[in-house]
């Protein structure tokens, strides 16, 4: 063979190439900059602050907005938290709330609703989905007011009015079944997210595939079981993981509904505790430091779940390399 061709890549070309790459990187960082700044200001710095607050005893009695003047007390807040006799109950309450609401409403009912609304007349489907979205777009205050009215004691409660009409005894539902109340009220809000994701996933299944299965002789139920459900496996997983985290951090509805009661922490969940301790004068004294300890633990749980959830979602497949290169 002929002699090896001398590498014609001159150093000038190399410099030019490096310069081009750098320029293109700078361009990319330019695109990332606004998001990056917001993330730093409203996620990273606050995380640092909340970590710091959790090792101080900042409360409304010794409030200062100067971070340097706060009193450092080490891990005392965490110690208090672990020794808190109600922390255990609140922890299990949270697990109960997330698991039950998620499985009954955010996933199951959402799936049922999206399957039902995609198997009827298309415009009717739109109407039903619009109605299901109502709880999410109604102001929580009014939404909770509706449910309180629904469950109220006779003669004001709607349910008890039905009971009276049917000659049945009336109940004080909120007092006897607070958890049912909390789960159902949050569940009806939670349905819409899954419903939208599932519906759009079902709608994006190629029509040929759906028709083919009917031609192959499957009934509509069998088609749901053997074609549709396997095809929406990923959105299902997505809704499960995403809604787990949403439920974990949602507390506004519970606060308005039962405020963690009745009785001692009967329906209190972790994020509500963080809020109570830090922002509401639950004990006449907002304990910002102690509340932050609760928040830090919740942040940690959230991040751990998110990492697991990235593994489940096969993160590597999301980062396919761009097919345009910097010269």
């Amino acid at each position: 063979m002929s002699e090896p061709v001398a590498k014609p890549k001159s150093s000038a070309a190399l410099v030019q190439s490096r310069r081009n790459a750098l320029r293109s990187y700078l361009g990319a960082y330019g695109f990332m900059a606004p998001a990056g700044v917001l993330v730093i200001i409203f996620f990273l710095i606050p995380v640092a602050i909340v970590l710091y607050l959790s090792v101080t005893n900042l409360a409304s009695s010794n409030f200062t907005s100067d971070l340097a003047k706060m009193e450092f007390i080490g891990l005392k807040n965490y110690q208090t938290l672990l020794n808190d006799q109600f922390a255990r109950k609140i922890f299990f309450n949270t697990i109960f709330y997330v698991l039950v609401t998620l499985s009954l409403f955010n996933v199951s009912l959402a799936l049922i609703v999206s399957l039902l609304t995609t198997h009827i007349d298309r415009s009717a489907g739109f109407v039903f989905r619009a109605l299901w979205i109502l709880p999410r777009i109604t102001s929580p205050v009014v939404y909770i007011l509706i449910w309180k009215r629904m469950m109220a004691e006779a003669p004001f409660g709607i349910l008890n009015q039905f009971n009276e009409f049917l000659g049945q005894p009336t109940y004080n539902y909120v007092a006897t079944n607070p958890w049912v109340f909390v789960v159902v009220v949050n569940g009806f809000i939670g349905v819409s997210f899954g419903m939208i994701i599932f519906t759009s996933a079902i709608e994006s299944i190629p029509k040929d595939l759906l028709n083919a299965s009917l031609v192959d002789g499957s009934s509509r139920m069998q088609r749901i079981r053997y074609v549709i459900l396997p095809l929406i496996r990923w959105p299902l997983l997505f809704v499960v993981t995403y809604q787990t985290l949403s439920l974990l951090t949602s507390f506004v509805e519970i606060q308005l509904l039962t405020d963690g009661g009745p009785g001692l922490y009967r329906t209190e969940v972790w994020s509500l505790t963080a809020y109570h301790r830090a922002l509401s004068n639950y004990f006449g004294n907002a304990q910002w430091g102690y509340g932050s300890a609760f928040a830090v633990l919740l942040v940690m749980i959230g991040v751990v779940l998110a990492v697991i959830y990235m593994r489940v979602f096969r993160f590597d497949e999301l980062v396919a390399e761009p097919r345009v290169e910097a010269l």
Partner: protein
Amino acid sequence: MEIRIDNLTKKFGDVVGVEDLTLHIEDGEFVAFLGPSGCGKTTTLLTLAGIYKPTDGLIRFGDRVVNTVQPKDRNIGMVFQSYALYPHMTIFQNIAYPLKLKKAPKNVQNEQVRQVANVMGIGELLDRRPGQLSGGQQQRVALGRALVKEPDVLLFDEPLSNLDARLRLTMRGEIKHLQKNLGITSIYVTHDQVEAMTMADRIAVMNGGHLQAFDAPDELYDRPKTRFVAGFVGNPPMNFLDVEVSPANGQFLAQADSIELPLGVERGEASAGHRGTVVMGIRPEDIQIVDEGDVRGEIFVVEPLGREDLIDVRIGPHSFILLADTEKQHRAGELVSLNFDMTQAQFFDPQTERSLLWHQ
């Protein structure tokens, strides 16, 4: 514009797109890159366009090394398989977009777009949007957009593969005609060898990231330098058969099982020099069904193509594709005699797959 590609290598991580490609394209030439999907032809094209950065090697447009030149500064026009028309812009805006980016004055834009549109025969469609156009019209718009900035080089990435057969035929002629008139150096990527054969001045056949041959269409067809080229160029494809070539009665004989074919001296000598079996290739049009012939076989399938029948003849374990007159009305199961025109037979080394007849 003359294009010189020297030792071009493009890798994606560990995956080789194209390796050590050297190719010199004359000014005004129409070159086709031909090969099966994944052979590296589109990768080469996109590297020429400046979308991919070469891992190694040099690309020159004229005297200028363009390795690090941005796509917009290469003055190229490109037509994509999907046309890549901007769906939210009208046809006028689509064609005018390159001019707008060059900051050409409005009236110049206007005039040039109309001129190009008239050449492409889409003058009436300028107010429509791509979605309202047929495939052939979209194709013309894409071509118009590539031409409007008067590029030095035109790049085509399988532009006709989304069109129906009839339209493909028309567009084939139009593109070739246009290219000859304008004299723009053009590179045309395709996996359809008919397209490459009919349109290109020269064809670069590629496989597995390597250049197999770079020659004029006739040359590739008559004197294929590798077995791959022989098999890829020509439709229906060439028949291949492992044979042993030995001298007999001053002539030569190519043998495989019961098949014995007499061979001329020139081809015989070239292939008999090789010990063991060699790969013989023979094109379907070089096999005839005759009343009395050297070899007998049974017809397995008849595929009517209209003008002629494509016939699969089985001889023992071997299968040959050939073409026959439809009037003969051959039927599956029929026993026939075949005559092989051995003056057209090709011979290849079974290991290197290089031709034993045409050395580089």
